[in-house]
């Protein structure tokens, strides 16, 4: 009955693999709807693993992997999943990918696995992945869902990396990950490490300031995002 705003879309193939929305999805997931700063999801792990840059990077990678994987499969199966078992199916798919990543991590990087502890497993309950599966992958074609998974994963990873970098730098005066790469930053000459930064309170405060910075950068449009 209503005057519907959407016009009939030409076939996907005619507008490129991503239905012409690839770029928009990418920017949407990464900046405009950044999972942490805007959607406020996935904060648990954002705080827990960012005490070191290296941990943040591995966790970011984990999330990108799981998000892309789960988005892809949920999207592939979206037309044959009955409504009642939808949630259970999603959780199972997500859990599978998390288990895969966890096992790989245990096999190839045991130290990191010990450091990250249960937080890899907690990716299952990470609202970002479940949220994207429900809100996006269920209604969109597979390739576009991959882009969305990548965008959200990257948005999350970048935020984590920034927080991790500053927490480690201000907390210990050194950044171990960079040292692996050969870059040496050592502030211990003139800077007394603020241990608080690598402890729990530092995480909360760092995240709070980062979100404030993001809101400031978004400018007046961030008015609507206020919780």
């Amino acid at each position, binding site marked *: *009955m209503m005057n519907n705003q959407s016009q009939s879309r030409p076939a996907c193939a005619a507008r490129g693999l991503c239905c012409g929305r690839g770029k928009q999805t990418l920017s949407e997931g990464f900046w405009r709807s950044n999972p942490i700063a805007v959607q406020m999801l996935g904060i648990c792990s954002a705080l827990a693993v960012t005490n070191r840059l290296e941990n943040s990077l591995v966790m970011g990678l984990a999330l990108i992997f799981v998000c892309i994987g789960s988005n892809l499969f949920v999207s592939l199966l979206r037309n044959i999943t009955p409504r009642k078992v939808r949630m259970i199916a999603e959780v199972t798919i997500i859990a599978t990918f998390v288990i895969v990543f966890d096992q790989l991590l245990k096999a190839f990087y045991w130290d990191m696995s010990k450091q990250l502890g249960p937080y890899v497993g907690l990716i299952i309950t990470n609202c970002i992945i479940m949220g994207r599966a429900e809100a996006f992958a269920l209604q969109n074609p597979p390739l576009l869902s991959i882009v969305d998974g990548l965008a959200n994963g990257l948005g999350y990873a970048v935020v984590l990396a920034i927080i991790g970098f500053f927490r480690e730098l201000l907390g210990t005066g050194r950044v171990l990950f960079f040292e692996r790469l050969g870059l040496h930053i050592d502030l211990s000459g003139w800077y007394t490490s603020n241990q608080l930064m690598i402890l729990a309170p530092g995480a909360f405060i760092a995240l709070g300031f980062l979100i404030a910075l993001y809101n400031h950068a978004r400018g007046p449009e961030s008015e609507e995002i206020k919780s």
Partner: protein
Amino acid sequence: MVYLLSILVLAGLLAGLAILLSLAESYLLDYGICTIDINSGERPIQVEGGQTLLSSLYSNQIFIPSACGGKGSCGHCKITVTSGGGPVLPTEKPYLSRQEVRSDVRLACQVKVRQDISVRIPEEFLNIKLFTATVETTRELTYDIKEIKLSLNEPSEISYLPGQYVQVEAPLPEGPVFRAYSISSATSASNIVELVVRLVPGGIASTYLHNLSVGDEVIFTGPYGQFRLNEDPSVELVCIGGGCGMAPMRNIIYSLYEKWPSRSCRLFFGCRTRRDIFYLEQFKQLQQKFPAFEVVYALSEAHGDKQWDGERGFIHLAVDKYLEPGPKRQAFLCGPPLMIKAVTTVLKEKGVDPEDIFYDEF
């Protein structure tokens, strides 16, 4: 070997949990048989507890209007629950005014029948029936709008007022859903019902209706709708619509002119481009037959269309342009919420009493 074991354990665990849950459900959520007392003893009915009031009533052939099919997103299923309904739910609050809450008005699709309950249902709801019909013809009006003519089987006649709608049942594997569609045929034709359906991408009912062929059976309930055409022939009727809103207006206009051939009536219709227009020729013919009828079409996205000689822009602007303040009027609006809001403002400026402005909300 480990994989086999893991699959077995997982399957066993999930099965075990499912069994436990369904046992718990049947024990905990078993409310027994409850009585619904309607309008103080006229027709008390026995239903199985645990279902919503709406579905309990439906299974007893009492069809409360519901555009959203019981999901709690339309607010049409309001009835008075005098006792046994429990506290007002947060899902109902957005649709109930304070006055309504005080007078025990509830949303039937949100109230669960857990105990004996008594309700008050208006007579017109009790008169709503379930109809089975066969598709007689289907006609394409535009690239995405179809006109479907249904001939009634059982009951074989329907009596309705112009502007009313029916709820068509669209079958789904997990249970049917009902969607509202206005009746577009004139009320004098009591053994047929014509619907105008736009194909909404992903829409359950519109896809179902568009895929029907001649001879298919359709089930619907009705008639619903609070619009009452003002019987005073000196009151001018103004119909303003967008998109599929033409359907009820055709019904109203045809019925009006069958009764009052010289009554003044104005139709304003807005769509986006030329290919969204339908019934243009029919209304132009009507205009020639009944000089007191005026029709104005406006296209909002016809920038490149040089041949269009009608109005351009949104429909409320056309209303503003052509409608002079003055005569007593009744207005019927049908279209998207934004259009309704804009048009209502213009109408109020032209002196139309808000009581006389009517619109369907779906």
